[in-house]
Structure formats: C-alpha cells, structure tokens
C-alpha cells in the first residue's frame, strides 16, 4: 500500500487535540484540532431571540456561524461571509439542530459561533466538532454529540482525513458528521467522481474516524469535570 504524502496510513487520522472551557464569558466553549486544522467555538444561550420575528413558539432557534480567520489560509481570506461560508454554516447548523433538544427552550435563541484559526482541509469538520463540545459544555440538552471527519479519494485510494496536498490534488472530498448512539449521518457532502462501491468503502472508513473523534470529544468534556472535582477535594 502506497504511503500518503505525510506518511500516515490510509485509515489514520491526524493528531487530534480536543478541549473544552476556553472562553470565560461564553456559556460553553470548545476547541478541536486535526493536525494543523483548528477551530474554536463558543455557545451563548439560551438567550432571548433576536430578531424577535424569528422566535419559534415551539422550540429554540439555532443560530450558527462558521467563520475563517483571515490569516487561517495560505492566501489571506477576506473577512466577512462568503457563499462558501454561508453554505457551510447552514449544513453545520442543521447537523447540530438535529441533536439539540430544541423543544426544551421555546421562543429562545441558542447562538453558536465557530472560528477556524488554522486551515489545512476539513475545517468544517473541526468547526462542527468544536461546536458539539461547546454545546455540551454549555449544558444544552442534547441527544448526543456530533462527531465529524472527512474521507477522500487520492490517487484512486480511499483515505481518511485528507490534508495538505491531498486536499488540492485529491479527486474526492467527503465531510461526514455522525451521531454514534443513533448510527445516523447528519452531515454529508461530496464532490468528485466515485463509484457506488467506492463511496460505501469511504463512508465506512469515515464512520470509523468519527468514532475516534467522538472519544476525543468525550475525553475533553470529562477533563473539565476532573479539574472541578480535584478543586473540591482540595478545599
């Protein structure tokens, strides 16, 4: 089996770092990094919904923004929303909305913001992962976390978590958002040509990756309560 440009195995994720509780004034916050792709997310809410006319008498309204820092990419990324970032914000918002118990907060708004700090492929996956952590940290009732990673086809081979040259030279890129407890896919996009059989293989590999991501998210959340416990004991 041929090696990948950064020496990883075809089914190997980059190094992962997941953390919670980094933004003091947010109700919840999270950070997620795959190699040199990183994103930080904050949750504010439930808050009173603005603008008022968007408030839903049956459930909370979820606001989500995906944004790339201007210095996160090789060429400077012009600040402000782009068509790409609006589409990404929409699909991430929908994935998170599906797991949040929105009926618990009728008329309210829950604001989720994700900032990509460093971009080296799979930025929407990192943003989704960080935001899941932030929501759980904020204590928003959720059915589960959404775990996300990408799979791709590079030189005809199906690989997990594409990065670097693989992103520009690869044939196919598939970001996946997966909810392990329900075995459901809540985010799925694909561009590039693939047969049905290849896609099946890719999705299976992606789900395997998402399960690893999920473990890291859970560990990050457990970590904050560990600190809390030890402080209690010291007192």
């Amino acid at each position, binding site marked *: 089996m041929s090696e990948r440009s950064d020496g990883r195995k075809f089914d190997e994720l980059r190094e992962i770092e997941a953390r919670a509780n980094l933004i003091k004034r947010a109700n919840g916050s999270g950070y997620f990094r795959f190699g040199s792709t990183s994103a930080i997310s904050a949750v504010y809410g439930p808050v009173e919904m603005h603008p008022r006319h968007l408030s839903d008498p049956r459930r909370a309204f979820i606001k989500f923004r995906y944004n790339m820092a201007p210095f996160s990419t090789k060429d400077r990324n012009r600040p402000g929303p782009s068509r790409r970032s609006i589409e990404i914000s*929409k699909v991430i918002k929908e994935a998170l909305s599906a797991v949040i118990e929105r009926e618990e907060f009728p008329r309210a708004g829950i604001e989720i913001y994700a900032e990509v700090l460093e971009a080296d492929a799979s930025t929407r996956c990192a943003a989704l992962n960080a935001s899941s952590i932030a929501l759980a940290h904020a204590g928003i009732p959720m059915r589960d976390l959404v775990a996300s990673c990408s799979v791709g086809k590079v030189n005809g081979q199906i690989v997990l978590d594409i990065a670097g040259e693989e992103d520009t030279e690869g044939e196919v890129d598939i970001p996946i958002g997966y909810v392990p407890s*329900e*075995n459901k896919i809540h985010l*799925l996009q694909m*561009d590039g040509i693939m047969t049905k059989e290849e896609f099946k293989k890719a999705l299976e590999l992606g789900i395997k990756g998402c399960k690893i991501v999920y473990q890291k998210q859970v560990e990050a959340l457990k970590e904050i309560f560990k600190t809390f416990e030890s402080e209690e004991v010291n007192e």
Partner: protein
Amino acid sequence: MITEIDKNYIREIIATGKRADGRKFDQYREIEIKKGYVKNAEGSALVKIGETEVLVGVKMEIGEPFPDTPDEGVLMVNAELTPIASPEFESGPPNENAIELARVVDRGVRESGAIDFKKLCIAPGEKVWMICVDIHVINDSGNLMDASSIATVAALLDTKIPKIEDEEIKRGEYSGKLELKNIPIACTIVKIGDRLLVDPDFEEESVTEGKITIVTIDDGSLCAIQKSGIGGFTPEEIYKAIDISIEQGKKIRDKYFR
C-alpha cells in the same frame, strides 16, 4: 402554510405505503422541459416538475481567468428565489437556501466533468469565457433542487457560444455550441417516517425527516452529494438512496436527454 392536521395526514398516508397524490415512492411528477425559452440568453430552459417551475438562463461573458487556472473558462451559478414563487421567499440578497441551491447545482455540473473548461480559453491568462448560469425560481411547489439541476443542464445543452469581433462579443451571432461531455442528474430523496421518496412536493417537504441530493453521471458514478435540512440517515438508508438516484438519473437521462 401547511396545517398540523394536513401534515399528520401526509405522514399517515405515507406510512401506509401511498402518497397523497397517488404517486409511487420512486415516481417523479410529470417533467416538462422547454429549451430556448429566453431569446436574449445564449442558452435557456424552462423546466416544470408538476407545478414546480424553474427558468434558467445562461449568459456568456468574457472575463479574466482565475490565477490558478489561467487557461480555463469559468462557471458561475447563481439562484434567485423570487418572491413570486412562494410566500416564504423575500426579496433581497440570496439567503442560505438560495446559496445552497446554486452551489449544489454548480457542484453537480462542475464535478461531473461535463464542461471542458480548457476549450473556453480565449487568450491564456487574459481572456476566457465565463458561463453565467442564473436559476430563476418561478413556482416553488417542492423539489427545487432537481428542477434547478435539470433546467441548468437543459439550458447548458441549449447554449451557443457567441462570435467575437474586434475583441467584443457579437450578440446574436454564434461560433458554435457549448459541448457537454456528460449529463449530470440530481436526484433528491427525502425520508418521511421510515420511507424514502423521490421528488417531494411542497407538502411532503414540510414533513421530511431528512433530505439528500445525489448527483449521478452517465456511467452511473456519483459526482456530488448534499445532505440538507434537519434529520439524519443511517448508512443503509444512504446506500438505498444512492441506488434510487442511480436508477432515477438513468431514467431521466434516457427520457429527456437522449
């Protein structure tokens, strides 16, 4: 607006294996394609799927290539959810739904390899043809994604490349046709209860628990996927949706584009 009682009716009837309008789960509403609908556009098509109506116009412009692809033409897709089409649409700049619609149609065409962008180069690094596709939604009665995608492909097949005289476009005179090497067909599948249906009308769209658009090409391969809206799919449901999209893509391609 669809009332809760109507929504329940749609859910209940689908759970019994039927649809409110009598269609089968894998049956599209009647599709009608009229090419060359707009004279001033280099290519155009009006597509109806049932009562859903989308008009697509293609304008060919001369522009500068992107620096990383100096010898390739440019494809731009924009969608306008005009306020005439639905009480939910408002005038103003495109919202996230319009942007998603345009970007998924764009991805389907681009990734299918249908357009040979190198053939659209006029002077490398300086001048290339820009294919400007504008999707105008006239009537939203559900499944705008497939209607827009079919209309875009039909309009591109109708597109003629204008003559250039003294470095200016000579409108109304043509040097040739835009060639498509592939016919990408988008098929949108929704989940209602535990059933998968194609071509949802707007009433069915109001009760969907998941929506996925899969674009297939001539050889039955996939070239783009977009899961959209709130609600997830199990991997098995996705594989089933892929089989449906390959079958429906072939049917539509054979019936309307051969």
